């Protein structure tokens, strides 16, 4: 029982501008946060809702690889001196923290990870929040390739970010199911867990009914667009 407005960015885009953030935060936030907030801002604008009324669900399988690389590189030196900004930016909920600051929103937020099932997990969490708390939810997902030397250990060809604003309504029915996931249409996004939402975005973009199955631990999340 959800209806949605959506935005997404494939990796051809360089670091996007995030007008929502004040200049200092805009400079300091990590690339993955910039991506997430750029699409989030776009989705919220097109929804017409006030950002302060939205609870936020952030998902990412892999977080920000640039920060992990810098932190681990620094930690491997004798001085082990890490950047304090890198450290507070390394939390999985950095994007929601920056969002709340930029949007001046005290609304609840969460940050989730379920590896390849991260997007569907976020959608399930959002659906339960909508059902129980009866308020709209901003769902944002981002995964970017890891830099070397981490890259071979989690191969992701292209970055991807998407955001949806979901409201109580009659647009989508969510259920748990035991069948196979719908395969994502673009091979370019192989390895990118956030891009698992592409079949859903495609269904939302087209008129008419649709049935999409997204990977969840051991089964699928079935999303019926009515």
């Amino acid at each position, binding site marked *: 029982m959800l209806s949605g407005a959506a935005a997404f960015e494939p990796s051809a885009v360089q670091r996007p501008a995030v007008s929502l953030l004040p200049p200092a935060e805009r400079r300091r936030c990590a690339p993955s946060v910039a991506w997430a907030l750029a699409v989030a801002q776009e989705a919220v604008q097109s929804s017409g809702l006030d950002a302060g009324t939205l609870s936020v669900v952030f998902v990412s*399988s*892999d*977080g920000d690889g640039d920060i*992990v690389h810098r*932190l*681990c*590189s*620094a*930690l*491997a030196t004798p001085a*082990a*001196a*890490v*950047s*304090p900004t890198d*450290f*507070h*930016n*390394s*939390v*999985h*909920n*950095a994007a*929601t*923290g*920056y969002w*709340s*600051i930029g*949007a*001046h*929103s*005290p*609304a*609840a*937020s*969460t*940050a*989730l*990870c*379920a*590896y390849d099932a*991260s997007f569907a*997990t976020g959608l*399930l*969490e959002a*659906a*339960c*929040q909508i*059902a*129980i*708390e009866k308020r709209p939810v901003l769902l944002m997902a981002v995964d970017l390739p890891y830099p*070397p*030397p*981490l890259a*071979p*250990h*989690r191969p992701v060809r292209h970055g991807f970010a998407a955001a949806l604003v979901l409201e109580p309504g009659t647009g989508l029915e969510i259920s*748990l199911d035991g069948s196979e996931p719908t395969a994502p249409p673009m091979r370019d996004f192989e390895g990118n867990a956030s891009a698992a939402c592409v079949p859903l975005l495609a269904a939302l973009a087209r008129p008419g009914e649709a049935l999409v199955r997204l990977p969840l631990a*051991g*089964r699928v999340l079935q999303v019926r667009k009515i």
Partner: protein
Amino acid sequence: MNPLGVTAYTTTTALGRGKAAMLEALRRGKGGLRANDFDRAELRAWIGRVAGLEEAPIGGALAEFDCRNNRLASVGLGQDGFKESVSRAKAKYGARRVAVLLGTSTSGILRTELAYRQRDAQGNLPPDLHYRHAQNLYSITDFVRQVLALEGPAMTVSTACSSSAKVFASAARYIEAGIIDAAVVGGVDSLCLTTMHGFSSLQLVSDEPCRPFDAARKGMSIGEAAGFALVERGAGPLSLLGYGESSDAYHMSTPQPDGEGALGAMQQALTRAGLEPGEIDYVNAHGTATPANDRAEDRALVRLFGKRVPVSSTKGFTGHTLGAAGIVEAIVCFLALEHGLLPATLNSTAIEPGLESMVLLENRAAKVRRALSNSFGFGGSNCSLVFGE
């Protein structure tokens, strides 16, 4: 909200393995912090370290998961008959109707940190990094789910220090929405270089055992811990009565000075529980012993509760267990409720003038019917939980 029964729980911290070890330590006022002896031990700090993890590698079918964080999870799950409690729930509801929702801030990243010291001449990492089963945040939940052979929804919540409190809220919603009947909630965080050096770089770490709310406090002591609880549909003698979640919308690593966000989370928790502030018998504060947190939290507590409710921080016992702090301190509340013990704010001797909450410096024996626990994380992520009968 409909109360959610807490039907089993266990924790392993620097105080020892299992809940009896924690209860004994709280009763005796005997903390678990030690002078930093982790890794190269360069930082002058006190830490809450769990003994014996170096001798407890994960072998067999789950050997890919071997890392300090999952070892701590494995040790934690083996206490207090927790696995048997989960098996009973699985038999009652079906494996697909029991979820696993766990918090962590750093998962198995220690393995990657150490691997960076072993890069070859071309800068490559060793092939046995096991990113998916160690570093990745989902690793801890995947591991626990497989150890417990559960098949319901599973996710890691990673919102820094509020992680393993927020899992209670998600579990309550999933159960209320009817997609599950029970959940294993909790969290695990283990000592690693990122947090040790990271918090130090922000000058948030004390070179003495932390002393929350104390006039002479100098910052936090980091600890590691595992904690788990089984929650089920339907009220019981020990239940989650309410939860509240909010954001500070202020700064990434400093709390809102007037405690507005914290106040919002606590008020929501009381509202969901259908309780007035005066009905809370004990508050387990987030109480990290940083100057900023304790001051901001005190403001929020006084605004909501006045100066009447007994408050303590138990981070002097266990250290700040980060992604596991929510569950560890929920369990302190469980023990308070079950044993009528309000624990002291260990290591603290003189409350900072100007802080007005009734901060306990000695243990107190009293009937506790309702307790509230606070967990506040980086990014201004706030979560408050109310437990009781």
